[in-house]
């Protein structure tokens, strides 16, 4: 069950404020890094809803992102739709795709579920790759950014755009936390821990799973539209299944079912990647070793591990207090 603890609120605020300051003082390169982090963080938070809380480790999150990115790109470039209209259309497209896959795969579990999501992700990848109208493997370029000059924000500059991206991360985090604290979120966690019991209680298990996918897909769509506007270019590589695996790695490293964890994971992943690639070209090797070590260490991730230690420290005190209360009674 999700709790928006003071610790998590603090970590999230700290991370976002730190990134904003970094972007403000670090120049163009820092803005680019912050954008990369923001896109990955939104992806990881969206995946945390289905993977962390719902226990459905899907491998097609990158495909959802790609579908939204292509939806936005195709609408603006090929059909001259204004960005303000293309955004909701692209979000709707990703949501519909994700909800449909969620509905179809809801009955499978374990390795079959993982394979099924992988298959649908690859299906989207191959369809886009082979559709000449969408540019095939060359992709689509010349995608416009949102026009916010009305309220005095110029998104064509690196710094305002990266701050805008951080605000989106905050919004996505708030939506995800709100959903997980609602009755629906509690139901999703219940379905994860005991599906049969929840079904016996009259909960619509399939509907709950589909709903979780729909919300997760919409949020992944935000990342997709952001990515398309960032580089102003989309290519089928966005949908590669290895990217979905990468997002899953970020969630695992940060801490499943914590929402703040994926944000921490995304920051660590991108920063370490840039630092490591300055020193050595063996980034894949390091990712592999760290991933295996993280799983062998219990799979709680960075934030999960910190929270567990904090809880372990507090527990003796609580026991003391409880004893005192009993003595008085």
């Amino acid at each position, binding site marked *: 069950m999700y709790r928006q603890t003071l610790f998590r609120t603090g970590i999230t605020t700290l991370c976002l404020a730190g990134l904003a300051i970094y972007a403000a003082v670090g120049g163009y390169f820092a803005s680019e890094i912050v954008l990369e982090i923001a896109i990955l963080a939104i992806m990881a938070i969206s995946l945390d809803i289905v993977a962390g809380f719902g226990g459905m480790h899907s491998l097609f999150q990158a495909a959802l992102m790609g579908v939204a990115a292509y939806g936005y790109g195709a609408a603006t470039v090929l059909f001259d739709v204004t960005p303000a209209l293309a955004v909701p259309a692209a979000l709707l497209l990703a949501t519909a795709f994700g909800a449909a896959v969620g509905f179809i795969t809801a009955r499978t579990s*374990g*390795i079959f579920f993982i*394979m099924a999501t992988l*298959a649908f992700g690859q299906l989207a990848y191959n369809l886009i790759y*082979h559709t000449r109208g969408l540019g095939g493997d060359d992709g689509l370029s010349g995608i416009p950014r949102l026009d916010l000059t009305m309220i005095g924000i110029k998104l064509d500059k690196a710094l305002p755009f990266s701050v805008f991206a951080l605000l989106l991360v905050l919004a996505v985090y708030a939506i995800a936390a709100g959903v997980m604290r609602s009755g629906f979120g509690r139901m999703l966690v219940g379905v994860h821990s005991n599906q049969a019991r929840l079904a016996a209680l009259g909960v619509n298990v399939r509907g709950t799973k589909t709903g979780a996918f729909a919300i997760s897909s919409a949020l992944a769509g935000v990342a997709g539209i952001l990515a398309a506007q960032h580089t102003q270019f989309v290519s089928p590589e966005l949908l590669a299944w290895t990217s979905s695996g990468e997002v899953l790695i970020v969630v695992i490293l940060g801490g499943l079912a914590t929402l703040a964890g994926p944000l921490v994971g995304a920051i660590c992943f991108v920063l370490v990647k840039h630092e490591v690639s300055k020193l050595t*070209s063996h980034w894949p090797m390091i990712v592999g070793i760290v*991933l295996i070590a993280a799983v062998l260490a219990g*799979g709680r991730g960075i934030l999960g591990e910190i929270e567990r230690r904090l809880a372990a420290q507090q527990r003796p005190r609580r026991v003391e207090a409880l004893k005192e209360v009993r003595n008085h009674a």
Partner: protein
Amino acid sequence: MGDPAFWILQTLNAVQFSLLLFLMSVGLTVIFGLLHFVNLAHGSLYMMGAFVGVSIATTTGSYWIAFALAPVVVMAIGAALYLGLIRRQRRSSPMNQVLITFGLVFIFLDVARIFWGDIALGLEVPAALAGSVHILSVDYPAYRLFTIGLGLIVLIALTYVLDGTGIGAMIRASVENETMAAAIGINAERLFFVIFCIGCALAGLAGVVAAPIFSAATGMGIAMLVPTLIVVVIGGLGSLKGAIAGAFTVGFVETFGAAIIPDFASVLVYVLLAAILIFRPSGLIPARG
């Protein structure tokens, strides 16, 4: 298109690709059926087979030494993986297995880059199989015919071992009910280890056999992993007959799809997989009825 030679050629290509898929997927599916372990690094072992094969062939100058040794080397890598990591993870959740072996995929990718570089390495077809053979009124490369023959031999040998020998009975019993099999005196742990090694050796064999056709490249492991997983899921996890059925289904759909509708051949396979997962989630021929 109306030319019968074209279709004969496509059929031979489809059979050849199906048998390569079979070599890859049979190890994966039997490992899953017995150990309940999902090994995403299976594709990486295939890649290692190809690279090790290329290295042995260039140092010794003989393809046949590479052909004999590469599977053994890959089997040794697999044995080390099993003893060091996989044996301990057998009882963990499918997700942890996927993550750990996904980590191995990254590590193998980098190992291959360190030792063999990023450029694809070709391998000469052995001199004895260099030409082409006139068969069924078409000229077909002798080496590809050789891979068809090899695949068929492995297929028949494995069918015989599984259906007609004591070891095969032990394997089938362990897949059916591991606890019961252990109770009647089958040393499941040792059996698992042997099966895992054989599965890895077959992946290595597939790699060294594929090297002269596709050449060895760092991306080949990941590229092969997805079709192999599709074969396993379509066929039904854990069964030899399922692996055969799945390999031929995917092999033929992909080859003929590429010949008839070139752009959407790869989509066809995924549509097929999605349909199987929706209508027959345990695959065409599941190991447990």
